[in-house]
């Protein structure tokens, strides 16, 4: 996938929706905007699908070459690192 930034596509979609809702455009412009909006929407949707879930860790092999191997989080143990939310502080 080309490096399309999600926020750029989202911003474009939001901007187009705003312009169409303002209704200051001609019909031809509106139609063009609509099509651009659908394109931006598709980009957003594709990016939101995400890649394949993949968690890897860098290691060095025998030859000292870096490679990435699958990684699994260490098993849970009592931790005092509580989620922080301002409401319960």
């Amino acid at each position: 996938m080309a490096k399309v930034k999600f926020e750029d596509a989202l911003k474009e979609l939001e901007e187009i929706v705003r312009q169409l809702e303002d209704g200051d455009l001609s019909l031809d412009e509106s139609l063009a905007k609509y099509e651009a909006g659908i394109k931006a929407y598709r980009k957003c949707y594709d990016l939101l699908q995400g890649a394949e879930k993949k968690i890897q860790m860098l290691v060095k092999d025998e030859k000292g070459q870096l490679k990435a191997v699958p990684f699994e989080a260490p098993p849970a143990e009592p931790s005092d690192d509580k989620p922080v939310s301002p409401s319960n502080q």
Partner: protein
Amino acid sequence: MGRQDSLPLFDVRPKAPTPPAAEKRKIYTVTELTRVIRESLEARFPAVWVVGEASNVRIPGSGHVYLTLKDAEAQIRVVVFRGVASRLRFEIRDGTELTVFGRVTVYEPRGEYQIIADLVEPKGIGALQLAFIQLKEKLEKEGLFDPARKRPIPLLPQKIGIVTSPTGAAIRDMLNVIGRRFPNLEILLCPVRVQGEGAAEEIAAGIDLMNTLPDLDVLIVGRGGGSLEDLWAFNEEVVARAVFRSGIPVISAVGHERDFTICDFVADVRAATPTEAGELVVPRQDQMREHVQGLATRLAQALLGLVEAAKGRLEILARSYALRRPLDRILQRQQRVDDLAGRLVARTEHLLALERARLSGISERLEGLSPLKVLARGYSITMKSDEPKPLRTAEALCVGDRVRTRLHAGSFFAHVDEVTRG
């Protein structure tokens, strides 16, 4: 009685020693005397604590630190040899209030007594705290904390790099939160030690290494909670410099909410905890999807509204001109209006239908019906090269046809050289 001091009751004035007769004199050389003085001083003060203000601090190339410790009334020379000095986390500067532990000795060539320090601590504040304050001041002056250079983190990173311990609570917390909010993302962990000797260098090297890899959108650097000593690596200059150098935006997530580290100040964003870093780094996939879907609906409604409004406006126009324009022009206009409006509506409905079909396709894929999964098991799909439909039977194939076969990864074209009809 007369004046008190003229008639003392006891004479307490020291008697001036009378030099013994010449033949009984003990005569030292300077060296001998100095040695005796040294020995008696060393015997008397083998271990003392002394507090005072540092002045005349000199650190020549040898790495030993020479200074004078003084208070309002007196001063004493202090030497901090390199071995001790190199372990100091803070910098001894003129004016620093110090508590020094050591032994008193004499530097014989100059006949000066001095303290050889074994321990040097800032007075009234921990050595680490002072080191923190000093480094913070220094880096702040250099502009490493400048808010203007802080970069935004991407709203939805496709690939996240994490520099932390592979065994700590921090990585587990981060993966948990990220996985909950956005299940399918790529995450790359660079394992480093996060405390102890050499940890700071490993963290810095990890940040630099991540910057040589392609595709990382954001970097999280951190560890779970611990003592100030445990978190110390994140207060070291090498880490601060590496964060500053990083071309990838950095989220610093060290310890608990109350722990502020130098790394936090340099990073583009500070997360109070590793868990919060997970929350900051990705949006919730479901919420984001809802938002995007809502925008798509508004997009369609806005266009339909415009079409309706335009139709109404044009109808009014057409009527108002009816008395003054030839009928055919009116009819032409009406036709054009209907045509345009019809096209827009049809187009919109078409696009919406496509979207609906697409979305249901997507949900089917999510339910695991993806042909890609079948292909991954070793099956393949073959179609005539000029038709998009997969072949289910050999009926329509002739020798010499060009076909395309799609595999799990890639595809190839081939010519049919034999057909067996089943």
